[in-house]
């Protein structure tokens, strides 16, 4: 509210202002001059490609990193947060992409972690429980029980718990790093409702997202980062043109995000045939056929069973019924090894925890599924591994290109390309992609789309799972909509639009 009355806030001191912030790490300067300010009660959006320095900036603001140069002012006074606790006490709370909750502890224990309610050293469980409940109600999630083990909650619900934790600290500035990436459309709506309520109470929100539509909907002002520098700040979120934003972020113009689709040859062989696949309590009766060169999209809410279907096809979960055939050969149940040998490849949902060996070199991550082809009597040809990997990273435009680099240091988009390169190297025939562009910036995103299309053009059968309906429709030839473990719709992607998919996805969900 306050932010929109520009005249009024112009005279007041900004809640947070940042000047000339510089942060160096061994070998890289992550931030080299960031300026922006956040006013009380506004939603300030931070835009930038992966590697632009957003994550580092958040860590500096929330006290996880100390800046090397520059100043941070809180309500006009220069401050330096030595650690996240100090930042939280001041009123800055960050909700990270990788949620920092402790699995095994209950929801209310997590909310009050680090500032437990206690009397003479004894925790006040009942009070913590009551307050947690109140916070969850305020966040529109009375369905989450304060006693639940956080590890058993869905990612979306875990995020709500993270927000409750920030609120429990009486945060005046919430930093949200891509909160919508793990949420479904209706959950995003709830999140926006919460954000509007918080800002009306004078809380400021720094909102990071790659989805421009969201930024227009919820944001007040936008700051764009590129290569660790502020390239534009104070843009009005509702008025600035999309082309301008993308231009600022990438330094180049972007025409269309989704590549052209080639019609699928109806005579192309059915590479992947799934019949009657079921897993107890997760999903049942799933039939799925993918032809060579076809991209099939699975749309559905988080928890609808779409990721589980993909993982079961891949053998990472054991089905209770049904069969998976690749090129007419039935796969052994629940065996990833059999699936990989048959030509399947999976880019998992959680790239960092499921997909990558973060502390190992890029080339080792690429060759890990193809070691046999580089080995003679078990001895690896290291040089050949590097050469072949290097050809792939060049072809996929992985930046920076060195294959000796440790994967951890790459941005989300480039990490995803490394996982893709792994399956390209194996020349897999069926590629299963779970949320292929989560945490990937706009520029790299369209590159990944193009890559997926190129693969399809070469005859690979592709299955894409995504929460982003636009992505599923833009990328896939055919769409399957999954709701509560059932396929409720199947049809060509160009015969259905986004709102219809959302209807299907949500039908019965609200009830």
């Amino acid at each position, binding site marked *: 509210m306050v932010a929109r009355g520009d005249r009024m806030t112009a005279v007041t001191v900004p809640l947070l202002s940042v000047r000339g912030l510089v942060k160096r790490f*061994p070998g890289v300067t992550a931030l080299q001059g960031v300026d922006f300010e956040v006013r009380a009660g506004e939603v300030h959006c931070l835009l930038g490609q992966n590697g632009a320095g957003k994550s580092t900036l958040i860590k500096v603001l929330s006290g996880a990193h100390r800046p090397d140069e520059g100043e941070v002012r809180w309500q006009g006074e*220069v401050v330096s947060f030595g650690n996240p606790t100090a930042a939280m006490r*001041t009123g800055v709370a960050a909700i990270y992409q990788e949620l920092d909750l402790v699995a095994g502890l209950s929801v209310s224990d997590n909310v009050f972690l680090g500032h437990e309610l206690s009397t003479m050293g004894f925790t006040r469980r009942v009070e913590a429980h009551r307050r947690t409940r109140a916070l969850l109600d305020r966040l529109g999630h009375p369905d989450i029980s304060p006693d639940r083990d956080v590890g058993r909650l869905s990612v979306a619900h875990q995020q709500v718990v993270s927000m409750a934790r920030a609120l429990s600290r009486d945060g005046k500035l919430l930093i949200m790093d891509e909160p919508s990436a793990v949420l479904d459309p209706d959950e995003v709506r709830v999140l926006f409702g919460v954000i509007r309520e918080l800002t009306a109470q004078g809380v400021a929100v720094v909102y990071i997202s790659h989805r421009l539509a969201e930024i227009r909907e919820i944001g007040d002002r936008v700051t764009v980062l590129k290569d660790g520098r502020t390239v534009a700040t104070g843009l009005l979120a509702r008025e600035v043109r999309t082309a301008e934003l993308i231009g600022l972020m990438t330094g180049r113009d972007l025409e269309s995000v989704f590549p052209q689709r080639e019609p699928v040859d109806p005579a192309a062989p059915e590479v992947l045939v799934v019949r009657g696949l079921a897993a107890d309590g997760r999903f049942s009766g799933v039939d799925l056929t993918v032809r060579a060169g076809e991209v099939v999209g699975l749309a559905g809410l988080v928890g609808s069973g779409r990721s589980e279907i993909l993982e079961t096809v891949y053998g990472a979960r054991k089905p209770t019924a049904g069969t998976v055939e690749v090129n007419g050969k039935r796969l052994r149940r629940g065996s990833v090894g059999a699936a990989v040998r048959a030509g399947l490849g999976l880019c998992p949902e959680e790239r960092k925890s*499921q997909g990558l060996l973060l502390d190992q070199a890029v080339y080792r991550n690429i060759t890990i599924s193809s070691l*046999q082809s580089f080995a003679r009597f078990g*001895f*690896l040809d290291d040089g050949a591994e590097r050469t072949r990997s290097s050809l792939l990273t060049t072809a996929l435009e992985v930046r920076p290109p060195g294959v000796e680099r440790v994967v951890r240091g790459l941005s989300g988009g480039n990490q995803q390309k490394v996982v893709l390169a792994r399956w390209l190297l194996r020349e897999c025939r069926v590629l299963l992609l779970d949320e292929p562009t989560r945490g990937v910036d706009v520029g790299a995103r369209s590159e990944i789309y193009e890559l997926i299309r190129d693969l399809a053009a070469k005859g690979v059968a592709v299955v894409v799972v995504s929460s982003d309906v636009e992505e599923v429709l833009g990328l896939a030839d055919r769409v399957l909509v999954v709701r509560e473990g059932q396929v409720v719709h199947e049809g060509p992607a160009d015969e259905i639009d986004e709102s219809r998919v959302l209807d299907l996805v949500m039908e019965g969900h609200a009830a």
Partner: protein
Amino acid sequence: MSEDIASTTASGTPVVVKKETRRDISALLGSAAGRNTGLVVALVLLCVAGVATAGDRFADLDNLLTILRLASVIGVVSVGMTFVITGGGIDLSVGAIVALSSVWATTLATQGVANSTHWVALMGTALLVGGACGLVNGMLIAYGRIVAFIATLASLAAARGLAEIISNRRTQIVDVPGFTAFFDASVLGVPVLVVIFVVVAVAGWVLLNRTTFGRRTFAVGGNPEAARLAGIDVRRHTVLLYTLLGLCCGLAAVMLIARTTTGSATHGGLYELDAIAAVVIGGTLLSGGRGTIAGTVFGVLIFTTLSNVFTLNNLSISAQAVAKGAIIVIAVLLQQRLARRNGV
């Protein structure tokens, strides 16, 4: 809290300068060569201390060969342990497995079976018993899904107990013709025990760094879930890792029998701690995913040399234990520093 929120710019500049030099040093220590340099320096310092305090008694060729002979047995176990730890596991039962392998093999020998067969049967028995113990450990951990710490803790108790039952708690003296002769021999002045250690270390290095098995070990230790989804049979690999370590224990048992001419249920006491300590100070991460055979070899040599220097100076075993503890703590503290620096 007021300390936390101090003025930034005032103290900013000098801190930056200090960080730069620190970074250079940590970058050097962080590289593989640098890490081993640190270990070499530590070893050289120990030797200097040995010469300074014990003079010719330390620098004597016989003494140096004694150090190497002592290092050989625990060294073979430590090389195996490097694989298990790099693969994200831990094995507390190695000492007990050494004891069990030794008495099983010597029971065979003393009961006269071996007199009619070749002493290679004795060796084979020890390897077989060791390998089987490792296989059991691996199966319990990989397929029984018991946490490695607990599974091998159970093996530690059970194997040692079984060794006592088999040997009736008696030390068994080995007098198999050919056996002692073979292991007492030297190749170009190097005792056979030391030769075995060198061969195992070199083979271990090649296996870890140049083969698919080694690469998978790093993957399994670094991120088991990612390794599984990349198509690696993580459970089978885990079993192989523990079996490999079991075989190393069996070999160590043979070497121990040769050195002491006995088999005993008390052999290999606290080997688990010595082996884990050597692996860790060598630079292998206890959390898995990073491991170095060269580092382990240096770790073993550092500990053995330390014992030797202490013994030559008539210092008690208790004092040695304190020194060992201190070295482990310092090494792990350094390692964590490096991990944090490189992790950013």
